[in-house]
């Protein structure tokens, strides 16, 4: 029963957040200076024809009506038509979603695996030189901007050694090997910062858990240190790390936009930047809403993960 209530509560929060986000995204885009009609017709165009084009796009109508139309479309999965290309936005974005998702998901998984390994090592060996070096290494990784890492990787591994292509994308469904080959450098450059951030969280979470009374109990009943940590510490670490993972997703998406530029990947990020430059606001709104949706869905899943991990949240009498 408590589980049902807890899930319902989080689902309600999800829906409300999504609605608030749609209002904010719409208002922010409306407030942007610049005008798509002006961009299409050029700086020297006469005001009358600019006004005519604005009327044709429906941009002269009140905000509330335009918002209603846009959200109504979103609910049926219709993102509207691009002002510039006059083509529906949804089908235009569909193939790009795959590019961005594979970039983000691969980076997330790789970053998580590396963070667990390095973070645990840094925590368990924190009083030794090697643990200190791991910790210091994560500090350096934290300071490296993703785009710089990307450029450096291209110079060394694409231009210099010619091991990997410097850019471009092959769909996974067409050629899995080619896809992987093209994804290596972008994923690695995005992963460097992410894994460094997560490593620090995993390290401090493990250090905290190591000092927990119930880990001492586990040792006292006959577990050796590492198994004790795996059996009785990992869940408690997971609660903390999963939280950060949800929060990091937003910064990962921002990183992906930059990395797509560096590696000329035809993903959502490159399209977003183009659309902003061209004041093609419906495209901007559509992409930003997709990104918001992704972040909210992940954070909703994070909340559900808490319920799975921590019994104090799903059984009566929990005081956490």
């Amino acid at each position, binding site marked *: 029963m408590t589980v049902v209530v807890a899930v319902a509560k989080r689902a309600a929060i999800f829906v409300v957040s999504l609605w608030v986000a749609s209002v904010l995204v719409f208002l922010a885009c409306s407030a942007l200076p610049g005008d798509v009609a002006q961009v299409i017709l050029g700086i020297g165009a006469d005001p009358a024809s600019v006004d005519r084009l604005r009327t044709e796009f429906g941009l002269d109508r009140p905000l509330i009506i335009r918002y209603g139309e846009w959200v109504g479309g979103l609910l049926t999965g219709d993102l509207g038509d691009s002002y510039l290309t006059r083509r529906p936005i949804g089908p235009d974005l569909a193939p790009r979603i795959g590019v961005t998702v594979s970039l983000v998901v691969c980076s997330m998984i790789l970053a998580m695996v590396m963070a667990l390994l390095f973070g645990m090592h840094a925590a368990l060996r924190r*009083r030794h030189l090697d643990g200190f070096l791991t910790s210091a290494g994560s500090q350096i990784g934290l300071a490296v901007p993703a785009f710089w890492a990307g450029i450096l990787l291209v110079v060394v591994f694409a231009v210099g050694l010619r091991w990997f292509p410097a850019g471009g994308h092959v769909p996974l469904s067409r050629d899995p090997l080619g896809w992987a080959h093209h994804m290596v450098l972008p994923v690695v450059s995005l992963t460097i910062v992410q894994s460094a951030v997560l490593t620090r969280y995993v390290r401090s979470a493990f250090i905290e858990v190591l000092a*927990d*009374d*119930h880990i*001492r*109990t*586990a*040792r*006292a*009943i*006959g*577990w*050796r*240190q590492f198994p004790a940590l795996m*059996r*009785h510490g990992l*869940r*408690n670490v997971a609660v903390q790390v999963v939280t950060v993972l949800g929060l990091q997703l937003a910064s990962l998406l921002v990183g992906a936009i930059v990395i797509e530029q560096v590696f000329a990947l035809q993903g959502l990020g490159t399209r977003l930047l183009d659309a902003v430059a061209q004041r093609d606001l419906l495209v901007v709104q559509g992409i930003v809403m997709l990104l918001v949706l992704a972040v909210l869905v992940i954070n909703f899943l994070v909340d559900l993960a808490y319920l799975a*991990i*921590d*019994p*104090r949240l799903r*059984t*009566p*009498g*929990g*005081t*956490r």
Partner: protein
Amino acid sequence: MTEPVLEVAGLSVIFGNREPAVAGVSFAVEPGERVGLIGESGSGKSVTALAVMGLLPEQARTSGVVWLAGQPVLDRPDAELAALRGNRVSMIFQEPMTALDPTMKVGRQVAEVIGLHRRVARGQTRARVLEILDAVGLSGPARVANSYPHQLSGGQRQRVVVAMALVNTPDLVICDEPTTALDVTVQATVLSLLDSSLAEAGAGCLFISHDLAVVAQLCTRILVMLDGKIVEDAPLAQILAEPKHPYTRGLVATARIDQVPVGERLPTVADFWSRDGDVEEELR
């Protein structure tokens, strides 16, 4: 004469460059014997216990000899010690609220202690878990086994911890202030539970406390620890009747407030002993 279950000789423990936490401590616990180790916080009681269990943090430096159930403990590989812990020797800690894993049902946590040291079929393990939970006075053992720690009270949790410590019938149980975090009524029931369970298991006990009144209920011999050294080692009756060290005299006087004449100030340890060396004995 049988071999002691625990023998400590010249044990010293040093953390970093500080004064030794434990400085040349020697004592033994005979099979089935109950020894109380008392002293104020910071006197080195808990460090002694952790050294005996081989659970000191890695930055601690030790010297001396510790024999546990006939095996040397200090500087032995962790695998060897892990086989002893929870099996031949077990430990009950102070904090029942946090000593158990919050994410695991307590039945599984008790079963783990069995599974770590015995090859037993699952059905038998379950039966043994329920049996021991019942033996430590938990009503409805099946329901308790199926609960998470947060669903139990402090007293119930400490009973679970006692069950975990006794389930493999160890030779020695080390109790580190096991009742300090409990309220007085629960304290009394847990003490009498420990008393009967230890007797039934025939286990020796090293009982650590700062409270002479608590130790007196359970132990037959008392070690008084002060600044990392054992300053007095005598049978309980002798400690109570004729304490030798001024610090012990202070402990006895403060534990027997029923002997203070009505209206007079309660004694404190400082009346008998102070670290500056000038012992005030005006109460005599």
